[in-house]
């Protein structure tokens, strides 16, 4: 493990003891240190939920935004400054529920950022309602007779949409997760890691031990095989493969924009001449 102290903040953390978020936070700091991204060059955008509080505990620039809206906001920031290193911390409700449409379109755009979906299959911040990834039949205070909709499989959905980098991790396999995050950060284009994590307070089914028995680190020799990736993403829940499912070549959003200046928009000084040229082009006076 590399020295991660420079990413520590003194903001008091109030996640429940044993929360899977701690493992994810540690893996993030480790990956950031390994990739040598200094805090001042890092922007973390998050939505709302327990996962979305993550950037408060990492030394970085931060936009803790609205529920579900982190991805379009991150895209806007990237348009303004193409040099930004952006990580989006989201949860299963934030990303696949409230932000579902944005998730779909972020993949279409192939925005160059890394999306970490903290997937604990339950709503934590609002105290235990079912989430879009809760399993069928799971009972909660608000779904006392059990969830009657099928869960969303985030990685499989991302693969059908043509995402370039799709992985699944587990908060209990920290070093493995750090390696996944490092690979995702190196990927040019949209990269997502669906991170399984227990919710010690509200999910009594998918516990730390439940995952420990099932997750299996796997080596995927062919990272360009979408079919194989889909197989891994949709594997039976008795044996959950974790690792990189797909890491293909991709042409990211910014590089698709014709005429986009190579300098970040934010660094280009105001130019009266080009402004005048546009004003003149439609004025005949």
């Amino acid at each position, binding site marked *: 493990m590399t020295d991660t102290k420079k990413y520590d903040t003194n903001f008091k953390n109030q996640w429940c003891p044993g929360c899977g978020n701690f493992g994810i936070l540690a893996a993030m700091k480790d990956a950031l240190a390994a990739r040598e991204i200094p805090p001042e060059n*890092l922007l973390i955008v998050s939505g709302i939920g327990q996962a979305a509080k993550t950037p408060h505990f990492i030394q970085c620039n931060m*936009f803790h935004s*609205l529920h579900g809206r982190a991805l*379009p906001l991150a*895209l806007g920031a990237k348009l303004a400054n193409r040099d930004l290193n952006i990580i989006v911390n989201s949860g299963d409700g934030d990303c696949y529920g409230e932000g579902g449409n*944005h998730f779909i379109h972020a993949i279409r755009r192939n925005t160059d950022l890394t999306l970490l979906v903290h997937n604990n299959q339950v709503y934590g911040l609002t105290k235990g309602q079912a989430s879009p990834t809760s399993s069928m039949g799971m009972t909660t205070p608000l779904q006392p007779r059990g969830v009657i909709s099928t869960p969303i499989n985030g990685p499989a959905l991302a693969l059908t949409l043509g995402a370039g980098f799709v992985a699944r991790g587990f908060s209990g396999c920290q070093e493995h997760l750090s390696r996944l995050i490092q690979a995702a950060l190196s990927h040019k284009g949209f990269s997502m890691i669906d991170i399984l994590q227990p919710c010690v307070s509200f999910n009594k089914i998918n516990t730390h031990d439940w995952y420990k028995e099932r997750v299996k680190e796997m080596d995927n020799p062919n990272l360009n095989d979408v079919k194989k990736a889909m197989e891994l993403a949709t594997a039976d829940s008795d044996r959950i493969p974790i690792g990189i499912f797909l890491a293909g070549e991709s042409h990211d959003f910014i590089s698709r924009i014709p005429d986009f200046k190579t300098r970040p928009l934010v660094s280009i000084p105001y130019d009266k001449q080009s*402004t005048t040229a546009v004003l003149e082009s439609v004025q005949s006076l």
Partner: protein
Amino acid sequence: MTIDMTIKIGGAAGQGIQTVGTLLTQACCNAGYHVMGVNDFESRIRGGHSFFQLRISDVPVNAPSHQVDLLIALNEESWHRHQNQLKDTAMALIDSGEPIESDDRAVNVRFAKIAGQTGSKLYANTVAAAAGLSVLGASFDLIESILTLQFKDKKQGVLEKNMSAARQGVEAVEKMHLETRPLSKTSAPKGQVMAGAMAFSLGAVASDCRVAAFYPMSPATGIMGNLTAWTGQIPLVVEQAEDEIAAVNMTIGAAFAGVRAMTATSGGGFCLMTEGLGLAGMTETPIVIINAQRPGPATGLPTRTAQGDLEFVVHASQDDFPRFVFAPGTLDQAFELTKKAFKLSEQFQVPAIILADQYLVDSLFLLESKFEPENEINRFIVTDSDLDEPGSYHRYQVTPSGVSPRALPCQGEALVLVSSDEHREDGHISEEIDHRNAMVDKRRAKLPDMLKQMAEPTEEFPDADTLLVGWGSTAGALTEAVHTLRQQDMNVGCMLFTDLWPFPAETVLKRFNQTKRIIAVEQNSTSQFARLLRVETGMACADSILKYDGRPFTPNDIVQAVQQMENR
């Protein structure tokens, strides 16, 4: 005025009404007249009924008239629909199967058939335009120059075919004469023809807007369309989002990262953006939102005009935060207030909303003086070198003015922390009472200085017994109505608002204290401005003149309404 004529071109969607309208407007402008043109169309691509109404005059005109001097009807329906607006001296050129004999103002001209003879029925609108110009007295040279201007960039052959269609059109009306033939005398152009949408787009460019995100929605889309055409020439990205929620959040993200950013929509899209508006308010991120109003609620009348969103945009979002709301009424104001919105939004780190409407963005007006670029753009931003200790920078530092030094993320040692939850000075979330109160007070502390930026309403005859009060795009109709009423010896003036929020209550109270009677004139059904005026100043309007049918006010609408009030 010696010349004040209205030409109406009617037909079905898909018949090229707008093209004829543009041609006629351009021709009359080039001939030295003041012009203004209104587009009236349905939310459909083919069929139905559309019209374009052009008004020309030797004095400035900024509102449509209720009477028609020349009707160009590309189908019979247009005749039936607009017949009752024709003046006695009017002429109607009608493409109908059977000549209309019941009215001697009606002349049968088979535009489509003539066009067919020259090659294709597609040119029927050019035949009609040329015929119309001809009865207005235009020489073929003028017609030719306008066609060249319009079609010179099109595929080879298009201009020639249009020219030949135009010749046939002129021939078909050779022996017909309107009593007044304004185009037989020409002088130097008084300005240039411009749609309201263009003035907003140019305002954004002149503000150095770099990111514009939108979801298509009539009548705002044209503003974004103009911007799109300039990407590549200036550092500007225009992105079509998956929905208005994404559009406003992209705008916020871009502004946060340091460029000027905007979005444009109509009321329905603004509903979806309301959540993001609150985010901009809470995080003190400067963004500009143009709401080109149309009648609602829900889908309403997509292609028509209204002023029904005033109270909505002033109050939109939960809880309170400062914002600017501007409502331009002319091309010049559209350009200037767009610039003002961008500037003040950054100066005070608040969202700014511009209330336009379908009438203002889709209509053609005469631009008389050129829009000029700024020499420099003040961004109200700090960098590490402006900070004593960039390492301990606090984005929401409490200051007497409420405005905190604004650093940009990833531009130096200063870390920028922003939260949509209530937060501390350093940007971390907090539920502590002291933090909450400090932040609410800090945001609110901006209001007195924001108020100082609000321009006073413009006025005509402010000492009159009766003051008509309006805001935004009704300015043209209101001003003309006042002049007409005064010619009828009525002691009437008007006061026109553009800078609406924060509401300049003190200024208004000072201005109004001599007035005996105030009448609000608005394009909504409950007189929203009158209500705002009462809430903010305690002053009550004696009456309201309201129009909510989706069509713009004509000066005559207002004149008649005032006369009726007088006669009650």
